[in-house]
């Protein structure tokens, strides 16, 4: 998508003296299509020149941005991200989970923007268009997280909390909630998102339940089981 222009041309156009270090940094930005942040650029650049300091990287990036060699973006994640200033204008799609940036250009959007500006009596100098959401990969890895209430309201939904499962039912963990201490403990014992659990049995007095996860049996109380949200596999009861 990106036009890979010659580094020398870039420096020439921006009127920056092409020192060795600057060249390394510019190359690092150009070769990474993912709109890297300063730290990433630093690490990429260090693979070429191990003696590079982070301060140099910051200084150089500031210079590049001032001179228009790179564009500086703020996608709301608290760190500035850079790309080599493109010859042609484009907009961005930003994944809020993995931070991936996708460039796109649509003439209809550009036209629409000009139209809006005209109607409002605006003289358009510049614009940026950033669309936030989940990328195709992130959408695939995690099911939408429902709260228990939502799940119940949903009626047909197969998302429930672990305490609502009966012995023999199986489910895939969608979310592990609860206080830090509890969550940490549950996770260290193998209760993590994506894992499949089977409810084995309920204690004679009705409270702790025993479940099977990662090949081990664990006992936990309803209170704790409530903080684990699972997606029940198939029709309930056939999971075992």
């Amino acid at each position, binding site marked *: 998508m990106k036009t890979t222009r010659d580094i020398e041309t870039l420096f020439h156009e921006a009127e920056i003296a092409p020192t060795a270090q600057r060249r390394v940094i510019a190359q690092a930005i150009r070769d990474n299509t993912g709109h890297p942040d300063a730290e990433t650029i630093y690490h990429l650049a260090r693979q070429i020149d191990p003696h590079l300091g982070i301060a140099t990287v910051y200084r150089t990036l500031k210079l590049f941005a001032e001179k228009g060699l790179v564009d500086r973006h703020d996608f709301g994640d608290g760190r500035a991200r850079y790309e080599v200033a493109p010859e042609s204008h484009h907009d961005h799609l930003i994944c809020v989970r993995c931070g991936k940036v996708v460039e796109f250009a649509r003439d209809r959007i550009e036209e629409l923007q000009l139209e809006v500006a005209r109607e409002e009596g605006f003289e358009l100098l510049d614009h940026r268009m950033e669309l936030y959401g989940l990328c195709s990969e992130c959408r695939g890895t995690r099911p939408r997280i429902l709260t228990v209430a939502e799940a119940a309201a949903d009626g047909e939904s197969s998302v429930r909390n672990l305490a609502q499962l009966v012995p023999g039912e199986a489910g895939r963990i969608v979310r592990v909630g609860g206080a830090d201490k509890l969550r940490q*403990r549950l996770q260290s014992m193998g209760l993590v998102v994506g894992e499949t659990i089977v409810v084995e049995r309920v204690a004679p007095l009705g409270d702790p339940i025993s479940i099977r996860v990662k090949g081990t049996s664990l006992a936990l109380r309803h209170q704790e089981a409530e903080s684990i949200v699972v997606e029940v596999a198939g029709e309930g009861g056939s999971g075992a």
Partner: protein
Amino acid sequence: MRIAFIGNPNVGKSALVNAIAGTRLHVGNWPGVTVEKKEATFTFEGEEVKLVDLPGTYSLSSYSIEERVTRDYLLNERPDVVIDVVDATHLERNLFLTLQLLELGIPVVLALNVWDEAKERGIEIDTEALAGILDVAVVPTVATSGEGVGALLPTARRMAAERPATVAEYNQACRDAAAAERPHVAHYGPLVDPEVRLLGEALHRDAAEVVERVPCRWLAVKLLEGDEGTQALLDGAATTLLKQVGEQRRRIEALAGDDPATLISDGRYGFSKGVVAEVIRQRPIDRRDLTELIDRVVLHRWLGIPIFFAMLWFVFHTTFDGAQPFVDFINQVITGPVERWFLVGLTAIGAPDWVASLVSEGVIGGAGFVLTFVPILFFLYLFMGILEGSGYMARAAFVMDRFFHAIGLHGKSFIPMILGFGCNVPAVYATRSLDSYRDRVLTSLLIPLMSCSARLPVYAVFVAAFFVDQRGTVIFSLYLLGILLAVGMGFIFKRSLFRGDAPVFVMELPPYRFPTLRSLMLYVWEKLRSFVRKAGTYILATSVVIWFFLNLPWGVQNPADSYFGKVAGGVAPIFAPVGFGSWQATGALLTGVIAKEVVVSTMGEIYTPEPEAATAPPEVAEEIAQIGRGFVVACRDSVVAVLAGLHLFPAPEQQPPPSALAKRMRTAFTPLTAIAFMVFVLTYIPCVVTMAAMGQELGWRWTAFAAAYLLTLGWSLAFLTYQGGRLLGFA
């Protein structure tokens, strides 16, 4: 070479440590906390090895004491090599801890334990590939048979020599290679990894001294997890760095929609999964045959509870009835031949009478008293060892948890509480099976309210004197009162002292295994040795101190004139409002601190002094033969008692009080004061041995608290009983 053993609970780590160090193991506590610390020092091929067995833990965070102890040891002591014991049949979950260990940069030897079981289940692990991916040494082991155990120490030594990773070297390695290129370090995804690097740089910049001691990457990951215990490591640089950590955590959370700790856990498991997929050739079949079959019965909806009680009854009955013949035997030997031999010996070397009295009553009496607990504790530990080693203990907790949850306790608390009816001492030691310190403290605080068998003789004396007709009712009411008080106090403590500190009840139900005889015996031996050495010392000292109080000033004849009598007389007014303010009653209660049943013998002495009958001492040879015969008889009686006995509580008839005493008691007490006195005996201060056990298990502060709260409770109840009774018109 300093070696630390680490591993999840239930992976057979103790068995492995036992197999290597055996009787050289020294059992103690970690400083400041009552988590068991096992260590051994020995020479291996000319090199001194210091071995430490770290508590079983699932993670290196700082939420439980076990985790904290393990983490602090690894950070502060930094052993030369760590032997990480993992269950080969549950590799994926076990690697969760291993990956955290690797971040510390200490050379790791992975002991793939239960290797035989893994093979049986068709799990083939490519040990070379595993070693390569994780940059560790891998040794397959079978702790129960000893297979592979011999290779552990040489491998550990090789690792320690090959990877001399100081913190600085490890940090440098981390900085040199971008983390992405280090295959054995888990990745946490595109959201967390850059933050780890960023924080790492900040740590090098702002907390250079800290990073010299603590591996930078590990520190950064833990800080991003939000681990509170780790924040304390930052010292002076804390404020600015914690602000940055907070920002970074918020950033991750905003983008991921999940908290950083979850992402990091996900990352570790993701990595473990990858490793397992890489090195395990045949996916394990998830079958549990025997364990599943046993659980079907033992945890059955209707059978579960009866089976639990049957098991409990068996333990209780065997512990106390089986031990009784040995207790009697030890008593006879100590107070008979041994004491006589000492006296003869002392007279022969011309020691004065008071020395003879001190030795026979103070020292031998005290030591004998300690020894009488040994048979009881032997049986107790044997059963605890079997219950824990086999995996049933976790099931017992599972079955009974609902019951105890209400008073803020754990299902496992049931066993110590019930044992308390026999004797509080083993009960307090049995709290070791509880996982958290909080549960141990709370359970131990309630145990003294379980009316132990030593209190029974006291009730028996009073019942015989005042309530012959309602004997059963009175004694049963006292037991019931104790139980109700325990429930009530449990409720109060849960809502006051231990508020907001509710333990997380997530417990593994390990597969059933046969405990090996060797590890059982080592377990029992360790515990008994530690009891005799630690608790025994306190008891002996107390016994000697009390002797002095009873016999000073020199030549005192009447106990009332001794310091003891004076103290009792001085304390007595405190007991006036509760109905028994005489120095005799107070004195009896004071000696009851040594052991509750002593209250009876003291009352016997104080109320009806009688001369001891002197018998001609038999020949020494004859006595030794008698001791031998006595032991054989004790063994036989023990077996008979275990097989035949069915009574949970020895019947009160077994101690018929002297009728002379009963008569004198009727003049000294009224039925009302008798009840008040019994209520007080039920609740007041635990005996010295119980306190010694509590001191050993909980520390002295909690022990002092227990004594204080029980005294207050006992006094208040006796006060209510006495004054309430008077208001209702009883004399």
